């Protein structure tokens, strides 16, 4: 009988042990020769600083799971081969589609018969991926199954624990109270009281809408400070670009050269992406037409603006705001070959 | 900033001229806004008109702010603030309605 090849995507979750156990049991019930492919997909590529520590974590996880499989197989007389791999190291995986495509590529190149998914599968620190990932697998026509596991009672993930909840309430309350008092009069007792009431209602009803991510007690204030540093830099870029564009528009010949480009930005998540896309649009000469995940489609008007975009100064600055100074040290989009000039029909 | 600008300040020639700068400036902004009307009327696409109206809205905010100093009506700034937010909402809402699935953001 031909050997069966089973692919198990791994991430460090509470149910990963059970998933591996199930994959082994289910496969050995059918045949005696099984090839296990234990694969960890990395959301970041090795070029960015946060990718390196993740690579180490993934390798540790793979060694651990390899041992588990050997343990489980030990008391049977089956022939089992184990292969481990870390995929996605030279790409920047963003949404479920990217992960599904990486796994599909792996599955076709290794002739995989079956994929066993961990129901808690969660690569990186982002939200759970399992449902959208399954939808993508369906769309690609990959055969998969979800391992039946007993999972420990899970607390509401979005809202988080007590302190997280408190932090979100606290931040929303003071932001809205401060805004109210700026518009009103901070020395007038009536405004102080009504402001507190309004801010209370706003923070209770909207804190979880405002902050969909956990706030770090050190990180979030630090980001605010770095954002304040970012604003003068952005203004400098805006003035520079404004002058360049003004010269072009006021020339009677108007030497514009509109070109549509695609840039894969190394910026992750809603807020950083918003900051980057808005900064790009605010700078005259570059306009974000689309922002699908981290793939930005940018319309550029003059060659100078395009060069600036490909040099990625704004991208590095946004990374500095959200990841600190070490996070800003990445190669430019041009060096990483993440830029592309596309035709007008590809919008 | 100089304390000379509190309302009680003496009406020095410069101070008088200062607020008088703002009304003519606002008038020039109105001229630019009228020029923008051409694009808002001519189109040719809905998005062109929307863009022109959006720029016009930003112009209006600036005009309101200038007039608040020029005519000494501080509450014009409140109007400008509300107008800026409405301008944004209008642009988002209309561009959402021009797209079939409503997925512009």
């Amino acid at each position, binding site marked *: 009988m031909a050997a069966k090849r089973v692919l198990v995507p791994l991430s460090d979750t509470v149910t990963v042990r059970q998933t591996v156990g199930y994959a082994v049991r289910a496969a050995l019930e059918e045949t005696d020769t099984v090839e296990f492919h234990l694969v960890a997909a990395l959301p970041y590529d090795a070029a960015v600083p946060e990718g390196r520590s993740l690579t180490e974590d993934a390798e540790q996880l793979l060694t651990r799971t390899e041992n588990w499989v050997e343990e489980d197989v030990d008391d049977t007389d089956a022939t089992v081969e184990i292969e481990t791999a870390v995929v996605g190291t030279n790409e920047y995986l963003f949404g479920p589609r990217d992960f599904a495509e990486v796994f599909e590529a792996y599955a076709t190149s290794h002739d995989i018969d079956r994929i066993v998914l961990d129901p808690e599968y969660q690569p990186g620190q982002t939200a759970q991926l399992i449902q959208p990932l399954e939808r993508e697998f369906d769309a690609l026509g990959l055969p998969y199954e979800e391992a039946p596991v007993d999972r420990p009672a899970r607390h509401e993930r979005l809202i988080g624990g007590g302190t997280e909840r408190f932090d979100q309430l606290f931040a929303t309350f003071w932001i809205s109270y401060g805004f109210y008092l700026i518009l009103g*009069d901070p020395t007038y007792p009536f405004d102080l009281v009504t402001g507190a009431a309004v801010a209370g209602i706003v923070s209770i009803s909207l804190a979880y809408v405002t902050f969909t991510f956990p706030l770090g007690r050190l990180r979030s204030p630090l980001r605010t400070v770095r954002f304040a540093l970012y604003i003068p830099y952005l203004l400098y870029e805006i003035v520079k670009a404004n002058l360049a564009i003004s010269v072009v*528009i*006021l020339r009677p010949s*108007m*030497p*514009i*050269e*509109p*070109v*549509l480009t695609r840039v894969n930005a190394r910026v992750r998540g809603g807020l950083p992406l918003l900051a980057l896309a*808005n*900064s790009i*649009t605010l*700078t005259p000469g*570059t*306009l974000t*037409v*689309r*922002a699908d995940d981290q793939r930005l*489609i940018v*319309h550029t*008007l003059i*060659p100078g603006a395009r*060069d600036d975009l490909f040099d990625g100064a704004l991208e590095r600055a946004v990374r500095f705001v959200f990841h600190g100074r070490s996070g800003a040290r990445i190669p430019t989009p041009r060096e990483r070959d993440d830029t592309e000039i596309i035709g*007008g029909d590809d919008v | *900033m*100089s304390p*000379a*600008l*509190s309302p009680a300040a003496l009406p020095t020639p*410069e101070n008088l001229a*200062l*607020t008088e*700068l*703002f009304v003519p*400036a606002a008038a020039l*902004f109105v001229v*630019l806004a009228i*020029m923008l009307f051409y694009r808002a009327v001519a189109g040719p*696409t809905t*998005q062109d008109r929307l*863009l*022109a109206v*959006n*720029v016009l809205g*930003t*112009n209006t*905010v*600036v005009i309101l*702010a*200038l007039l*608040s*100093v020029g005519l000494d009506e501080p509450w014009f700034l409140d109007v400008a*603030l509300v107008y*800026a937010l409405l*301008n944004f909402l209008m*642009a988002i809402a209309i561009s*959402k309605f*021009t797209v079939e699935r409503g997925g512009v*953001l």
Partner: protein
Amino acid sequence: MIDQLQFWAVLLCLAFGLFFTFVSTVGVLRLPDVYSRAHTASQTDTLGAGLSLAAVALALGWESTTIYTVLLLFFVFLTNPTAAHAIARSAAESGITPLTAEDELESETPDDGTSAPGDTAVNAGEEGGDHA
């Protein structure tokens, strides 16, 4: 002395604010398609509004209403690029293809009667295309 300084600062801010808004208006009227117009629209949002509101803040001096102008500028900076992005995206979704440098080359050569301006644009296009 300080009044004098303030006067000139306000005048300069107003003049440059007007200048950039003027450039932006010219751009919105002159540029060929909705995407390129959106670029120049952001000039009004950034330097046009920014410098004019700076003039307002300078004229008001240190008063509570000055915070309003800062707030106003903050809103304009936050909302207008988002609106511009929404407009550009809606243009893309409704199938308006942007004019690119190559298209221009094709469309400018047939009606050659328009003469020199078109040629300059094409030349600049080719130069830029090489090193981009």
